[in-house]
């Protein structure tokens, strides 16, 4: 037996030594490219999955991958920033964590009381103590500066200030008894208040943040206690049952526009499973948010409404921002052409322009990169895969009618070269007719031309099937027509500037593939072969990359679309070598020769042992 183990060990050593180690590439200084961009430049993007941050960090340091996003542990940031082969970037993102108060319950239904509590959140201490001052930034605004023009900096803020908190309480009629406990304006002791947080095991930092804040609240005499519950319980109590006093939670990927403000504060969303969890009901705020979301015909008009809405929201103090996490990304030196996307970062989901423009230093076209996909890719069905990780792949395969400037967020032409908007009256209703002119040189990955019939089909398909990910974008569409193959007319309810953004952002699917799909939910286009083109799947888009190979749960190989309508002017260069890997393969093949030899050797030794025993 022990001999067998020794043999296995020898075999392992042989296998191990026959594999090579790939270290980094030459370094360069990153440089933003000018916009608009033609691409893709790369020949291939290999998206790979690592289940733990330890594996992902080891992989990029080792050279197994070139790009890693969503780095959130201070220890990883330290290690990666000290690695001479890596560059590391910090970007503000549209993410925030907040403390929310249940405005339906006493004493939290008193605005003055909430404002006082808002001054008790030790943001700086949280950022420095729990995140070592590098992973997050303390946040005072509901709509962070990452929202550009939509961010109103002139709103009431609640920096940490216990003295100010006491002053607010005193002026609001609150007092303290001999033991220092808070007494309400009615002269009675305030009731015990609970602060729900995730458990220490499930979310240690959230637990600590709640603990620190609760301690501060206790210092001013509030009878408050921390109630750690499982994350699921927290969500159910907050989102569905509304059975809470105070809670702490984070949200990310808030998008380019502060549209969530409507969901978070409009009184119509104060219903079970609605996002207005604190129960805000304010008529002026309702009007402003409705104007912003559905009635503003121009961005300027929307901006005015949402700026005023932010002032009201800050004054209500139903949610108090605590911090926002940076998007921290690392990439191996030797890459250039990455583009910073406001509120998103350089490489993560939504950083479309980066992957169109990315190239190896000294190699304007060609080459390949390996990217950590970030998390579990659940499905590549473009109508269902709405998570950030699958979107990282899907957005490189499918295009939309419109795109947006990565810095300003301004809408720019894409599959639609141009558009015309007409505001009309139908009876007593305001409607908007948007006429899109499509680019004429766009083809699907299988060579079929893209026409307005495909776009009409996509919109009607989403509406008919009530596709959850897009239903809110398409529900105001009244009619779609395609008078000619390159013209599309969409009539929508209302005259909001979001109409264009909504229909311009939906995923466009090929009619010739999807018209035969029996059940859109279970359709897995990446796992079904294309009916006509060998080597392709039904994952057919018009995007810059084609799905060439996948092993679900492991990797997804995307090959540049040679017929892309915005293809980078062809510079014929060979695909960057994967020499070390090829060499590894050869060595692995060689190791196959070693195995039979070893097996024969083992057999010989065992036989000899048996023979000698008989003797």
């Amino acid at each position, binding site marked *: 037996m022990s001999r067998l183990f020794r043999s296995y060990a020898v075999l392992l050593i042989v296998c191990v030594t026959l594999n090579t180690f790939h270290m980094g590439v030459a370094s360069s200084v990153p440089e933003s490219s000018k916009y608009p961009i033609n691409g893709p430049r790369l020949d291939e993007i290999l998206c790979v999955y690592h289940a733990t941050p330890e594996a992902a960090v080891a992989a990029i340091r080792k050279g197994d991958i070139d790009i890693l996003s969503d780095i959130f542990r201070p220890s990883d940031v330290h290690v990666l920033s000290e690695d001479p082969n890596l560059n590391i970037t910090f970007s503000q993102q549209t993410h925030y964590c907040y403390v929310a108060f249940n405005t339906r319950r006493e004493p939290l239904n008193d605005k003055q009381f909430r404002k006082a509590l808002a001054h008790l959140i030790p943001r700086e201490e949280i950022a420095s103590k729990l995140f070592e001052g590098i992973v997050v930034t303390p946040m005072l605004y509901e709509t962070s500066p990452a929202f550009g023009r939509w961010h109103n900096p002139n709103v009431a803020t609640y920096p940490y200030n216990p003295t100010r908190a006491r002053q607010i309480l005193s002026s609001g009629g609150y007092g303290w008894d001999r033991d220092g406990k808070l007494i309400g304006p009615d002269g009675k002791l305030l009731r015990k208040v609970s602060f729900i947080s995730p458990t220490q095991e499930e979310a240690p930092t959230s637990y600590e943040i709640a603990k620190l804040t609760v301690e501060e609240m206790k210092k001013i005499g509030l009878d408050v206690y921390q109630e750690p519950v499982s994350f699921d*319980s927290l969500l159910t109590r907050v989102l569905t049952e509304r059975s809470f006093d105070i809670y702490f939670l984070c949200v990310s990927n808030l998008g380019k526009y502060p549209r969530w403000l409507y*969901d978070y504060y409009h009184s119509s969303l104060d219903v079970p499973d609605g996002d207005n969890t604190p129960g805000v009901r304010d008529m002026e705020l309702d009007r402003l948010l409705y104007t912003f979301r559905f009635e503003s015909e121009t961005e300027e008009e929307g901006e005015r409404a949402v700026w005023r809405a932010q002032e009201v929201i800050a004054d209500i103090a139903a949610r108090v921002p605590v911090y926002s996490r940076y998007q921290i990304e690392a990439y191996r030196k030797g890459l250039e052409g990455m583009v910073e996307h406001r509120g998103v970062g350089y490489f993560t989901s939504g950083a479309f322009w980066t992957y169109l423009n990315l190239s190896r230093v000294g190699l304007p076209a060609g080459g390949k990169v390996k990217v950590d996909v970030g998390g579990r890719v659940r499905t590549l069905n473009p109508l269902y895969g709405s998570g950030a990780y699958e979107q990282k792949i899907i957005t490189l395969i499918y295009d939309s009618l419109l795109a947006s400037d990565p810095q300003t967020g301004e809408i720019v032409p894409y599959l639609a070269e141009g558009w015309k908007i007409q505001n009309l009256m139908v009876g007593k209703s305001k409607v908007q007719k948007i006429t899109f002119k499509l680019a004429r040189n766009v083809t699907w990955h299988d060579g079929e031309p893209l026409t307005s019939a495909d776009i009409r089909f996509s919109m009607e398909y989403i509406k008919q099937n009530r596709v959850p990910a897009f239903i809110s974008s398409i529900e105001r569409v009244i009619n779609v027509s395609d008078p000619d193959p390159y013209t599309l007319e969409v009539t929508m309810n209302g005259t909001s500037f979001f109409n264009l953004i909504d229909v311009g952002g939906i995923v466009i699917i090929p009619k010739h593939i999807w018209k035969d799909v029996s059940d859109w939910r279970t359709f897995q286009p990446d796992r079904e072969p294309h009916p006509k083109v060998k080597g392709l799947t039904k994952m057919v888009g018009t995007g810059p990359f084609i799905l060439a190979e996948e092993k679900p749960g492991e990797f997804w190989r995307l090959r540049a679309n040679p017929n892309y309508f915005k293809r980078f002017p062809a510079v014929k260069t060979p695909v960057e070598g994967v020499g070390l890997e090829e060499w590894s393969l050869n060595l*692995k093949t060689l190791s196959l020769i070693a195995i039979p030899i070893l097996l024969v050797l083992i057999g010989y030794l065992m036989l000899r042992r048996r023979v000698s025993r008989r003797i």
Partner: protein
Amino acid sequence: MGFKAYFARRLINTVIVVFVTVTLQFFIFRIMPGNPLAHFISPNFPLESRRALMELWGLDKPVHEQFITYLSNLFTGKLGISFISQRYVIDEVLERLPNTILLMGSSTTLMIVLGIHLGVLAGSRRGSKTDVASVTFGLLTQGLPVFFLGLLLMLTFSYYLPVVTGGLINFPVAGTVSRPPPPDLPGYVMDVLWHLTLPMVTLVIISFGGYTLIVRSLMIDVMAQDYILTAKAKGLPERSIIYGHGLRSILPPISTMVGLSLSGIVGGAVITETIFSWHGIGRYLYEAVLQNDYPVMQGTFFLLSMVTIIANLVVDLIYGLLDPRIRY
């Protein structure tokens, strides 16, 4: 009672256990706090989208209708549609099952062989260096947290040693194959084995100690029996006494342990699969629990419970073969 009557009775018991298990699996997940919708708290999913999802998942229907749908899904073999991926659970399970069987099958086999071998050695040579070393090592490794050992091995063999040795020793950081894998079949097989090594070693190190300690204890009892003394008096070779007389008589309890570990072969190892990014059932189940993906939890637990129930049945039936004293 004859074998046929015994078999029939055990079969009826098994059917009852299956029905109770299936029913419990449905209701337990619905009693658990939280609902799948809560994971779409993201503002990108407004209320109308969440409601559309509830309809899509069938969660807007009464519980008794959901239960009937669940039963029909189980017994039509599809096991339902995952909320998260919208794929049939059986397809997702079958995609991962070979990886899990490879990892758990190889590690369980090695663990059993190594555990029994060391246990027998230690038990038959009580007080010797082999005994002390086996017990100490077995206790030590059994007490190690699997995440600690897994990360230690991964960082040592996949990161630090490759750096120190210039790539001479270089195990993969993640996955069941290289990304992309070698195009040729032999290369592919070698590549899978290369990726298998660290997670397999982790599981073996963590688990073999349990077998060693139990087998050692059983062997100590057996080696004190009269028939062993008789065998020694007859002058039988030590090897024959230990394996032919000692080990054989402790096979029934060992077979129970082996039978119970069969469900683990299908169920996977959550932490090890996660550390090594192994695309297996354990991680699948873990993610499903985190996201309240009822169809996946129900379908996977159904498969696991079926394997356990059947393994128990089989173990019960083969007891008689292993131990001639047992009569039905």
